[in-house]
């Protein structure tokens, strides 16, 4: 392969990726700028809060419950190698609050909400409903994207808090029924070692992940290609992009929160 051909084959995808990042960034800036400018669509926001927050509770709760339980089993069997079985309650609590609660909650919301937003807005795009909004003097970003992004940014931390509690409860359940922990001791250990910042950092992560999920859903939905295939592709891209960005943002936030 000639050097120019090699450079071209590397350069084209890099340029495309930079352009895509730029488009997403501009879209995010537009949404943020509309957050503080009227008109505000309160009814749409409340509806999205219900869709994103309330209806995601079962999936986030179940995920947290099973994760907390499995985490307790893993730490117990792993800790047994160096006589550290007693750290199960504190590690489950810290692990859930700092890492697994926000990350798994964010990923489950990405699967449920980013796909739903992208499919809904993609269908609106291909059936000209988004054009119709414009002709009716309504800014589609303000009417469709802003309520979704705001609702997800506010709802996901609440989901994370609920998920943390259920996850810790899952660990406690396994601890007292399978690992012979005393219930009161387990709870005392959990509370003694859990700090406010463990929970607070997880909630901030949750807000960031909620923003990412809705942003990706709206961006890919509103830029969907034509037809059923276009909507399908937009939905897939929204979930993949949101999931990868959540994991990347999680690493960055962990660096910022816990290594400085």
């Amino acid at each position, binding site marked *: 392969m000639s050097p120019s051909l090699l450079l071209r084959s590397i350069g084209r995808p890099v340029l495309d990726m930079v352009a895509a990042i730029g488009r997403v960034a501009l879209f995010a800036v537009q949404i943020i700028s509309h957050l503080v400018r009227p008109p505000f669509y309160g009814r749409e926001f409340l509806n999205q809060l219900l869709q994103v927050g309330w209806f995601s509770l079962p999936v986030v709760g179940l995920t947290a419950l099973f994760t907390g339980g499995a985490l307790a089993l893993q730490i117990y069997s792993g800790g047994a190698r160096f006589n550290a079985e007693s750290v199960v309650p504190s590690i489950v609590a810290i692990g859930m609050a700092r890492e697994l609660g926000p990350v798994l909650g964010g990923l489950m919301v990405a699967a449920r909400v980013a796909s739903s937003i992208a499919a809904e807005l993609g269908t609106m795009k291909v059936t*000209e409903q988004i054009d119709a909004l*414009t*002709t009716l003097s309504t800014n589609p970003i303000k009417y469709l994207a802003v309520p979704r992004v705001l609702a997800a940014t506010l709802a996901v931390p609440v989901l994370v808090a609920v998920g943390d509690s259920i996850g810790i409860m899952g660990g406690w359940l396994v601890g007292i029924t399978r690992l012979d922990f005393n219930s009161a001791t387990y709870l005392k250990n959990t509370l003694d070692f859990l700090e406010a910042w463990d929970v607070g950092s997880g909630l901030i992560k949750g807000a960031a992940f909620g923003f990412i999920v809705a942003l990706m859903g709206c961006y890919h939905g509103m830029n969907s290609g034509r037809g059923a295939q276009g909507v399908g592709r937009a939905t897939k891209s929204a979930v993949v992009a949101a999931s990868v960005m959540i994991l990347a943002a999680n690493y960055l936030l962990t660096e910022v929160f816990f290594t400085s």
Partner: protein
Amino acid sequence: MIQMQGVTKSFGTNRVLRGVDLTIASGSSMVIIGGSGTGKSVLLKCVLGLVQHDAGTITLDGQDVTKAERDAFLARFGMLFQGGALFDSLKVWENVAFRLMRGAAKRPKAEAREIAIEKLRRVGLKPDVADQFPAELSGGMQKRVGLARAIAAEPEIIFFDEPTTGLDPIMAGVINELIREIVVEMGATAMTITHDMSSVRAIADQVAMLHEGTIKWSGPVAEMDATPDPYVQQFIHGRATGPISAVR
């Protein structure tokens, strides 16, 4: 008056509009005809700013549409989309009254609903349709709701994108009559794009033939049948042979 001069638009290498010159007088009904994929919808969307044209000028009453204050500009328009483009999540009356419940034309909810029901009645739909969702309606009913939404705020200019596509001939006739009646009654300027010759004859004052990105012929509907223009003759008689290639 809407004036287009040298309007061009390309999507990648596909040059859809190649210099469109067209004038639509205030209060007149212009119908643009042409084959599928000739850029009729793109032209209409360029006027509304839904698609940005690459070159040329489009003016409304002498003002460049790209420089007009967006909300005030769009408030002058109503549009009936090809598929209706009704909002699935809203009830029929909320679709019709959408513009009346937001922005500068905002009215109290009860008043907006009353106007919506009146507009539904105007397009031949009973008041009990108002509380249904668009998905519960037939295609013809959805078109009527779309028409009611387009006229709800009594705009000065109404665009109709393929208003009879997908409808049976009787329903198409009903929609054509409604459009004509409403345009005359409101004194609105209308721009319609269609392939349907019965629509052309029912709706148009003026007709323009768009092909390969340019206007090949335009004139009063009364002169359409007699024009020697080969593009118009081939199109209105539906001939497979002529200057318009069947394979596009």
